[in-house]
């Protein structure tokens, strides 16, 4: 991994003392390569390396560490600081609290809606799932089956002969009325996957935000995303001012550099990670675990 590569860079270093600019330059080449392989965005890697270089030059190597270990510590500390830790969900508002899940196609929103519902249910909240994806075949059925598997009520979107009879804003409107009537305190809205460059669909999300003022707008992102994670996250955030991020499929073996790219771009907390297909495969986000993965 990176540690052994850096140990090689420093193996000809005579004694310890301070980290020279030359030692640092050589080691940062390896770090840069490692971060690019981990899918951290090219431009974000550039900024990161600059900031690590500034922190490292002239630093005295701690007695208990080798120069390589010292560099790794600086990098790791920087990564952990950038990734931050989770922040609590904004669920202190007057009920029903509204949480809306958004993101690209296939990122895991519908599954995550179920996971979040189970998580909040275990916190003794009364959750109502709302299927607002009117495009994907069997999307509503998917959320219905998920709700049934964990005994969470799901809004009955009216359908007739395979045709959905409400638009997303009408669905949410009706669902909120029912939630208020039944005293459900938390509504989770599952929306259709969409490209951030699809203007009509982005307008649909803006409409939902303006009409219903969700307490949380969570961007659900596949942790395996590549270089375009920056532009995707930036666009969703600029359109909707997201309140947080959920990274999915972290149980895979991708290094997950997209986490850093997204966090640095939107400066919003990563709140949870999805770690499997079961609805219980859901954890609160801790930056240090992901930092170690990204470093490889």
């Amino acid at each position, binding site marked *: 991994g990176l540690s052994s590569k850096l140990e090689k860079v420093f193996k000809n270093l005579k004694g310890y003392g301070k980290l020279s600019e030359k030692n640092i330059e050589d080691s940062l080449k390896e770090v840069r390569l490692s971060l690019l392989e981990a*899918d951290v965005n090219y431009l974000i890697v550039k900024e990161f390396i600059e900031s690590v270089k500034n922190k490292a030059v002239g630093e005295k190597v701690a007695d208990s560490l080798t120069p390589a270990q010292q560099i790794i510590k600086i990098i790791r500390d920087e990564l952990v600081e950038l990734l931050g830790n989770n922040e609590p969900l904004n669920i202190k508002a007057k009920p029903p609290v509204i949480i809306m899940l958004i993101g690209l196609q296939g990122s895991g929103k519908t599954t995550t809606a179920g996971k979040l519902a189970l998580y909040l249910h275990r916190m003794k909240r009364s959750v109502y799932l709302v299927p607002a994806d009117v495009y994907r075949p069997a999307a509503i*059925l998917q959320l219905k*089956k998920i709700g049934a598997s964990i005994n969470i009520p799901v809004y009955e979107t009216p359908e007739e002969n395979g045709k959905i009879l409400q638009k997303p804003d009408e669905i949410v409107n009706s669902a909120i009325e029912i939630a208020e009537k039944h005293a459900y305190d938390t509504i989770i809205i599952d929306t259709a996957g969409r490209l951030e*460059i699809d203007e009509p669909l982005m307008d649909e999300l803006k409409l939902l935000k303006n009409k219903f003022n969700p307490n949380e707008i969570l961007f659900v992102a596949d942790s395996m*995303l*590549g270089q*375009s994670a920056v532009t995707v996250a930036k666009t969703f955030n600029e359109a909707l001012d997201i309140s947080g991020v959920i990274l999915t*499929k972290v149980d895979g073996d991708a290094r997950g550099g997209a986490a850093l790219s997204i966090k640095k771009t939107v400066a919003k907390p990563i709140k949870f990670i999805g770690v499997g297909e079961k609805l219980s495969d859901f954890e609160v986000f801790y930056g240090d675990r992901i930092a170690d993965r990204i470093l490889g």
Partner: protein
Amino acid sequence: IFGAGKIDAADIEKIEEALVLSDISYKTAEELIESVKKRLAKNKDLTADIIKQALKDEVGDKISVKFPEIKDGNDKNIFIIVGVNGVGKTTTVGKLGKYYADRGKKVIIAACDTFRAAGKEQIEVWGQRTGIEVVSGKENQDPASVAHDAVQKFKEKDYNILLIDTAGRLHNKKHLMEELAKIKRVISKSYGSEPDEIFIVIDAGLGQNSLVQVEQFKEIVNITGVIVTKLDGSAKGGIIIDIISRMNLPVRFIGTGESPEDISEFSPEIFKDNLL
């Protein structure tokens, strides 16, 4: 971007940035840059256009590998569609059904994702909308047994193409990869020979892990081709260069949207022109 005359370090960095940002692996980006430098070593006046064309030519060299024709021309052909979660397998199976039906083939689809919520209903709706027959089992039925039933029906009737949709699975989940190997064995046994094509679906928006996916799936079920989806998004699909040149696999189709007609045969020409 590029100053007149030689390519300097700043230009190299700009080229490297453009290549890496398109999800080309760092290693391949460096190879492309070295080849372009060699190619343009004798050029006296370098302009941005000359460099760009040299890059396109080098990319073209890497992706214009000659592969055998896709195996869809026999009287009977079986395709299995595999890949990690959410990349677009089910949607692609739906699109391929229409693609081949439009070309006069009699198509049947096997709904072998018996695991995920509404996995089989999703492809059933596609079948209804495109007029393609779908064989599906019961909820949580062993996917291999659904596959077996589908192959039996495929052999008995005059279908030309059997498309098998499978559940998404991460390649690092050993038991799920074993399940896939079993599905393939059962199909081969019922069919009397190996499936004609096993396509892995790759999401153009994902990064370098796609190469690991291709590698790992290939090890377990002998991938014969690749389908890259979501190229209508902002990702450039540079990973295609790595898949073709490093994995030595053909990209057969690309997905460019969520409607039945949003599938087309991969064209190296169109791809390299859109890349830079």
